[in-house]
């Protein structure tokens, strides 16, 4: 049974905006993450028009207190006030991209009318940490692992998925992105697409999986990107969706490089 208030009723909700897309001449449809109702879709009338009072508040990665009116298909935003604007993310490319990836992955995994109090709090904590200068890639790795566990996709990465032996730092460990599992050297043959995992990457994965809060990682950008690539494969496999924003996490080309203009390329993917 729906836990939403009856139709045409107003209700107040703290909501993190994950995405928005234009609708009609001047309206927008918002995709929101809430504690009580999970994902919500709401129409914000006239917010693409210059005189709109709500337009400044309704942007991705902002947390607002919204008054919504229940509708048959979509809720309607009646009022909004800012709870947390995370405005300094707009000054940091890596932090902004990490936040957008968090938003896209959350939208791909959460359901409507499915309360998400823990994930909502983790998302807010992640954005606050990003805003305070926490390393974006390390934070994103933590959030993605948290989301996997929260949504019931926990894999124990202390053990080999083939022989169930405990993996040690000295072992040659391989990761299989499509299945989201780790394999030891003897179990690797036959696992097509398995990539070598550096010992420090294994340690970081295991540490992050146990961490209730973001952890600073002793990993360089290349190794972090390798783990992010692994998680991207796994998340895309689980959700059945292409997660487009991941491509923007990888290093930016600079003027003067061989191909300066391109969606940042995947780097740091490990080779055995």
């Amino acid at each position, binding site marked *: 049974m729906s836990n939403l208030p009856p139709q045409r009723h107003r209700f107040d909700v703290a909501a993190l905006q994950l995405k928005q897309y234009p609708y009609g001449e001047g309206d927008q449809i918002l995709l929101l993450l809430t504690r009580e109702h999970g994902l919500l879709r709401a129409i914000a009338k006239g917010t693409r028009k210059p005189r709109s*009072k709500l337009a400044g508040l309704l942007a991705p990665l902002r947390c607002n207190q919204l008054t919504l009116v229940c509708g048959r298909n979509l809720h309607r935003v009646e009022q909004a006030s800012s709870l947390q604007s995370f405005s300094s993310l707009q000054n*940091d490319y890596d932090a902004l991209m990490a936040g957008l990836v968090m938003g896209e992955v959350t939208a791909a995994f959460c359901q409507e009318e499915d309360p998400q109090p823990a994930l909502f709090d983790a998302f807010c904590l992640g954005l606050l940490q990003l805003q305070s200068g926490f390393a974006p890639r390390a934070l994103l790795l933590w959030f993605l692992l948290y989301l996997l566990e929260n949504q019931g996709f926990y894999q124990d990465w202390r053990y080999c998925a083939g022989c169930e032996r405990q993996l040690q730092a000295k072992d040659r460990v391989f990761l299989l992105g499509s299945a989201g599992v780790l394999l030891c050297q003897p179990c690797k043959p036959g696992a097509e697409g398995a990539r070598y995992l550096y010992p420090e990457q294994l340690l970081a994965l295991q540490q992050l999986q146990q961490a209730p809060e973001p952890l600073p990682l002793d990993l360089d950008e290349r190794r972090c990107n390798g783990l992010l690539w692994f998680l991207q494969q796994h998340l895309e496999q689980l959700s059945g969706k292409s997660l487009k924003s991941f491509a923007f996490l990888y290093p930016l080309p600079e003027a003067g490089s061989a191909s300066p203009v391109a*969606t940042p390329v995947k780097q740091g993917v490990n080779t055995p």
Partner: protein
Amino acid sequence: MSYLTPPLGRLVGAFQKLPGIGPKNAQRLAFHIVRQPRQVAEDLAEALLNAKDTIRFCSICSNLSASDPCEICQHSERDQGLICVVADARDVLALERTHEYRGTYHVLQGLISPMDGIGPEQLKVRELLQRLQQMQTDGVALREVIFALSPTVEGDATTLYLTRMLRSLDIPMSRIAFGLPMGGDLEYADEVTLARALEGRRSI
């Protein structure tokens, strides 16, 4: 079952493909055209085809223009060392209406949108880079690159991407200010706009 005769149905269908035109508006436009003298329809058709045949991207600034280079890039009184980067040709019109800006433009033809998978390779970013590098090679004094992109996540992402990419060229870069609209009342401004206005305050 459609009650429109096939040519009229086709015309309604063609109007309906235009942005912001729904079925009712499309019908209204189609009936209006049909009731007009033949000359009106011919003028409209000729204007459409002429625009489609003659308008192209300016090879310098990627703005839409019937001539190449466009009128702004050719203008001798324009400051060639001042480049304003905008997302769309309509933004050029908006800035030109101010009568304040005397530099040139670069039209990106869109904004980077990570969640929609729109990356810099789909925009006129390569052209901007080549233009700046060519100007440096030719010894043109590059005074400033101004980013006039919307204060949205897409606008911010594009500005951050470009500033990072162009950093090595060592050109002064700036972004237009954001804040309260002229004639606006502080009391009715939303918190985020007001915060940005405070952040972008200037000494007097």
